[in-house]
């Protein structure tokens, strides 16, 4: 099953090239050049993983991460940043980011992390479905 990925970064030439390379590797990739546009895409389409830039105009990566995780806790987020500080990394992890990579990122490493993220999302969604079924079974008393 191909990984459904959304890249959110204000550097359009970066997102275009990265998306093309990931598509060549069999992934289903969408791009957004701002956090606002990215949040809208997540509402309209289902994604396994969001690759998110940390520093963007209008809304930064940390703020975007908070909204993404609040709206869709199962969604996996990998942060990409020009300068990864330990402080930002810890903050991102605490907020539920799966990983933080520094630019320029190695595509093999990013691909591995995306695959892991997709697997993690599947487990979380399955777990949530099981809990929901269990809850229905208990409340309905079948």
């Amino acid at each position, binding site marked *: 099953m191909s990984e459904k990925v959304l890249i959110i970064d*204000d*550097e359009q*030439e*970066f997102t275009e*090239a*990265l998306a*093309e*390379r990931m598509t*060549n590797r069999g992934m289903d990739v969408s791009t957004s050049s701002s956090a606002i546009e990215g949040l809208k895409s997540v509402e309209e389409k289902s994604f396994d993983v969001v690759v998110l830039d940390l*520093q*963007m*105009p*209008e809304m*930064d990566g940390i703020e975007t991460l908070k909204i993404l995780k609040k709206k869709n806790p199962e969604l996996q987020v990998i942060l*990409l940043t*020009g*300068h990864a500080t330990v402080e930002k990394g810890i903050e991102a992890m605490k907020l539920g980011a799966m990983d933080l990579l*520094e*630019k*320029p*990122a190695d*595509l093999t490493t990013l691909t591995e992390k995306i695959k892991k993220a997709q697997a993690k999302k599947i487990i979380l969604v399955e777990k949530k479905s099981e809990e929901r079924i269990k809850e229905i079974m208990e409340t309905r008393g079948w």
Partner: protein
Amino acid sequence: MLKYTAQEITDQCGPAYFGRMGASISHDIKNCLAIMNENAGLMSDYLMMAQKGAPLDIERFSGIVKRIEKQIGRADGIVKSLNNFSHSMDKPEQQIDLDEAVGLALGLGARIIANKSIQVNHTQAACKLYVNGSLFFLLFLIWSILENVMENLASGAVLNISSKEDGNKQVCLSFQCEQPFASNFDRQANSQTLDLFQAKIVLDDQYTKADIVFGR
């Protein structure tokens, strides 16, 4: 009134300003490298496919090369600004082209300005205007005022910066916006640096315009 020496101001404010600009510039350089990295990777992907027998799309390939060249030019400009900034402390006093200094200050802080979603327009004077002093302190002064102004502006605001010679033949740098930005403008914050240029800040009644008027 207590006057500070240039050295004292450098010791007090220099490292913070250098650090802030350094972080902004390094972020921009990383972005250039990231774009070059992905496009070089894309070329490599196409070459690999060509080696396996797929036809090489020359037009597509040439487009990727152009994107890399564009980023090399962008990175070169950023590094040139960094170099000019690093040498800005070489001379304690020199004749400075005001508009060149504004351009440099804006270039150094471009990422910070972009992150605030504020559009800054710089209109240069019809003829060259010069001020005397340290380039580092002039950059610091311009940036301090700019940050002070941006602090009070909403996202999407347009800030116009222009230089001119006023009626008294004094060189003047204006920061102007349609919405008020200066209601809590901190005049004291820049007073030490203003003293070094024998300059003063003049605000309009609506708090939409701040002029740095340089002494002679």
